[in-house]
């Protein structure tokens, strides 16, 4: 099957809205930790709508490419086999981990993904603050190997949707910790708060989609510690609520840097966010090093 018979994200929209309303009410009546700022919320929700439109505009190219790759597949994997769904669940989640890691560690993909991190709040509306430029950035290419292996495009699309729906509920401060076994295996609000934090201690961590095991396996897991509450947003928070600035600021930053010094274009485009030829700007790596120097922490400590 090529085209998915349903889209889990579209089906989940009423649940998204109800959950946001519930979180606001819980925050309002002091039953849970939840803060919503009006312009921040408007930006998040509008980003979500814009992302859907951008996705529809670029969807044809992605679909056509995926189908073409599937036509040249290695195997034919049945869509009605349980083992195939287990396999696509694991492989899609692993793909998501690497997509997400690249999206944080290479500036050209960060330019597309940074929008999701510009909110200084961490609530369910933040989950909907999605990119408009993912199609242009080409991160969708990372999912093509699944179709090349032989997973039907519809199966991959459904699994991607399930992953996105899963990731909605973890964007909250209302849930402190899940049971230990769940925290060990799955991505949770606690793990993902760390991912959205701008504290030096927490930078570049917890890239998981559904399973946190990938971070544990690849050494990017950092637990949330009570003595250092997460502060949300980007290292350098945006100075305004302008929607277009939110969407394009990092792309514009790359363009300015490349125009100013074309011979360093590769570094500016594919280097880590903050890379500069003379090292005068901060990257996650330098920020963490400074933090370690300040606190005198042992850099081998997993908790940092």
């Amino acid at each position, binding site marked *: 099957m090529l085209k998915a018979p349903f889209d889990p994200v579209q089906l989940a929209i009423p649940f998204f*809205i109800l959950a*946001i*309303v519930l979180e*606001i*009410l819980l*925050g*309002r009546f002091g039953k849970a930790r*939840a*803060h*919503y*700022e*009006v*312009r*921040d*919320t*408007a930006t998040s*929700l*509008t980003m979500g*709508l814009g992302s*859907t*439109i951008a996705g529809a505009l670029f969807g044809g190219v992605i679909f056509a490419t995926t189908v073409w790759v599937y036509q040249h597949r290695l195997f034919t994997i049945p869509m009605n086999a349980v083992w195939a769904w287990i396999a696509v669940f694991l492989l899609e989640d692993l793909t998501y981990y690497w997509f997400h890691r690249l999206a944080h560690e290479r500036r050209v993909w960060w330019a597309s993904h940074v929008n999701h991190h510009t909110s*200084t709040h961490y609530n369910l509306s933040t989950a909907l603050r999605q990119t408009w430029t993912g199609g242009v950035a080409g991160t969708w290419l990372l999912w093509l190997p699944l179709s090349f292996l032989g997973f039907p495009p519809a199966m991959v699309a459904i699994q991607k949707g399930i992953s996105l729906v899963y990731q909605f509920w973890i964007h909250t401060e209302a849930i402190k910790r899940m049971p230990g076994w769940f925290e060990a295996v799955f991505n949770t609000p606690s793990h993902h708060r760390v991912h959205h934090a701008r504290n030096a201690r927490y930078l570049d961590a917890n890239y998981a989609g559904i399973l946190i095991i990938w971070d544990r396996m690849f050494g990017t897991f950092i637990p949330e510690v009570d003595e250092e509450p997460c*502060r949300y*947003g980007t290292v*350098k*928070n*945006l*100075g*305004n*609520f302008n929607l277009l*600035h939110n969407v394009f*600021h990092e792309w514009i930053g790359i363009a300015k840097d490349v125009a100013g010094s074309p011979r360093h274009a590769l570094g500016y485009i594919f280097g880590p966010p903050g890379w500069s030829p003379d090292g005068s700007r901060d990257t996650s790596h330098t920020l963490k090093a*400074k*933090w370690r120097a*300040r606190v005198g922490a042992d850099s081998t400590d997993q908790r940092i």
Partner: protein
Amino acid sequence: MDKALLIQLGGSAAGIAVLVGFTAWMGVARPTPPLDAESARALLALEFPDQRPDRVWISADGAAVIARDGDAALVLYRRGDGYVARDLPWSAIASLKPINGRVRPRLSDARPVLAVKDDVWPPREFA
């Protein structure tokens, strides 16, 4: 454009407006009381942990802070229910001209409005 798509977009936009209105009605933003000396110092330490500003000015409405650390000016201003931090050369701050009790430093992506008492600039904290 497809009529169904237009209806869907219109409905989504209306839904967003309702949800944003509901957020405003509920009033669940973080409390941001005016900054005082202690909270301003704490915020500076959090945002500029490697710098040790010796002089600190708090805007008349308590919504912004400027601190001086040698040739650098450390600026904090309220945006929504949080604060934005920027550093810039001290000369860019020293040359500001207050107009109607306001100064507006030019930052890379904003021109925040900072309330100044008595139109005096630089304030006595930086004299």
